């Protein structure tokens, strides 16, 4: 059993369909993933908005001032420290953590030497080198250009959530997984449905378009290490760089074990806590599980449809709120045409909508445990307040009854409003919408029903 403060989560390996050689590869990669955890630990500091990326006694404006002379200070891949002369200096991760990374790279290279898949061996070599020389772009490009392979391995400085000061510095994380072919087939079907239509876009020049290069897979994750072990993500959509995404596409991964855990321990109990008892009887657990899983991949697929080059610059700190909730809402909206084309049933669409509401509460609970995910909670608060205002969901003693027709109309309207802000909205537009709808009181009101989960 891993001690609680070590950011490593191991999942069951029971029933894995791997050859002897593949098992050896996976074992080495798991070792590499484990070896990344201490680096993440050294970056993490929940008491500090800048985590351990910047000196604690330096203000945000001092960092910005220093970055004018030395832009590397705001690079996603440097640690900022105070030099003896009092000036700020930026040290690249691959130099700062050279000793630890050499060990990680050794495991990856050993895995590369064992695998029978030449493409995967090359990718592992490029990945190991990237950790040692900081050329993450080359590694990302090779990874995205590779044909989907049974074994999935991601490692490096990736997510920015711990840098609450600038949302810039990346934390180390890693995962190893193997593809669930059946569920991956369902996810690919949804992706193909959604990207097969051409959308009218408000500002085509600002839209990042790479729909033909999106890959999606559902994995039986075997290990999470580093930041992902703390946040227990149910999905990932990489790379983060819009430029690489536009040229080489993106890879969406849904993590089945963390999703199942989330569903069993949170989303399904939430469904029972917030919906009226008779209503619940219409939805067996497995129908809801699939609805909830589809919410995950709809969210990630929609992310790729809603990339606007300058949205982050315009919306500043509000960007993550709109970025996340617009993807979730748009994903449900996109299911409307799937129903009319007979690609999904009414019951399946209802399950997706119902689990969207359960997911809103789930993010609120996550926020209570981990305040850095507040942008998800605020985003879903926007959606719930909007639905309540339109009468799509009603409250009575904490329970809610959805009117699916009204709810779908609300989802459609909200998806349009959110995309408008991402595409052409100003900072003020974003602020007004957040002030009007993002109050977390909507969740608090359901508190008595959810007290066992909070």
């Amino acid at each position, binding site marked *: 059993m891993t001690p609680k403060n070590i950011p490593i989560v191991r999942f069951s390996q029971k029933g894995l369909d791997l050859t002897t050689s593949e098992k050896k590869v996976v074992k080495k990669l798991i070792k590499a993933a484990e070896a990344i955890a201490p680096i993440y630990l050294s970056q993490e500091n929940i008491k500090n908005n800048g985590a351990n990326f910047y000196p604690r006694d330096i203000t945000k404006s001092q960092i910005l001032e220093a970055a004018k002379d030395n832009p590397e200070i705001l690079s996603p891949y440097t640690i900022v420290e105070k030099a003896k002369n009092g000036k700020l200096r930026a040290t690249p991760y691959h130099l700062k953590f050279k000793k630890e990374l050499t060990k990680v790279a050794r495991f990856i290279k050993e895995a590369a030497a064992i695998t029978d898949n030449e493409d995967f061996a090359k990718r592992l070599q490029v990945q190991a080198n990237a950790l040692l020389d900081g050329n993450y772009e080359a590694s990302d490009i090779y990874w995205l250009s590779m044909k989907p392979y049974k074994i999935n391995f991601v490692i490096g400085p990736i997510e920015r959530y711990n840098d609450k000061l600038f949302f810039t510095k990346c934390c180390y994380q890693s995962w190893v997984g193997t593809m669930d072919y059946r569920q991956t087939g369902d996810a690919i079907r949804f992706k193909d449905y959604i990207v097969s*239509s051409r959308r009218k876009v408000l500002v085509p020049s600002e839209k990042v378009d790479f729909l033909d290069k999106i890959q999606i897979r559902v994995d039986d994750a075997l290990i999470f290490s580093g930041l992902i072990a703390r946040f227990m993500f149910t999905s990932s959509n990489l790379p983060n760089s819009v430029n690489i995404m536009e040229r080489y596409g993106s890879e969406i991964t849904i993590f089945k074990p963390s999703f199942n855990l989330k569903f069993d321990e949170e989303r399904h109990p939430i469904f029972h806590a917030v919906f009226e008892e008779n209503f619940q009887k219409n939805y067996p657990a497995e129908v809801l599980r699939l609805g909830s899983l589809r919410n995950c991949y709809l969210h990630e697929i929609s992310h790729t449809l809603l990339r606007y080059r300058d949205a982050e610059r315009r919306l500043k700190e509000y960007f993550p709120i709109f970025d996340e909730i617009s993807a979730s809402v748009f994903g449900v909206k996109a299911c409307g*045409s799937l129903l009319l084309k007979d690609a999904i049933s009414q019951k399946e669409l209802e399950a997706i909508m119902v689990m969207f509401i359960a997911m809103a509460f789930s993010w609120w609970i996550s926020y209570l445990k981990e305040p850095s995910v507040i942008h998800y909670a605020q985003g879903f608060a926007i959606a719930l307040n909007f639905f309540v205002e339109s009468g799509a969901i009603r409250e009575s003693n904490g329970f809610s009854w959805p009117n699916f027709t009204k709810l779908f109309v609300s989802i459609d309207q909200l998806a349009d409003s959110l995309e408008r802000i991402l595409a052409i909205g100003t900072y003020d537009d974003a602020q007004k919408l957040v002030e009007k709808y993002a109050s977390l009181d909507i969740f608090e009101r359901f508190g008595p029903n959810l007290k066992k989960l909070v």
Partner: protein
Amino acid sequence: MRHLVKKIILTQKGLDQIKAEYDELISVKRPQITRRIQRAREFGDLSENSAYDAAKEEQSLLEARIAQLEEVFPKAQIIEQVMTTDFVVIGSTVVVEMNDEVHEFAIVGSMEADPAAKKISNESPVGKALLGLKVGEVIEVSLDPVKSKIKLLEIK
């Protein structure tokens, strides 16, 4: 009194694909799964035998599909290759505007429908609504909870 048999509408290509799938299931997949079940039985105790359970489950799915395909042959009604018409028929490829999105797909019989491959069933709400429409016409289609206006932009 004669029973009315509901015909299954197919293109010749669709019927050929179904025949090919049927032949493969009968001559390749069925013997394969029978062999797997036999091998799994040799491992002993069937109550704790996951390989046996998996093979049996696969066998029941296979037999269900075979039965489904066998139903198609006597009911198949082949539709001729579509000549360009000025209204939508089964077999037409159409371009429509729906919810501010432009969709292009072919309208096919339900057996050939595969929305991910842009083949929509003539029995789906969208399929039913479009049959007989001319370019430029707008129609409302709904299936709770979704309501949408569809404008026919082009018949290919």
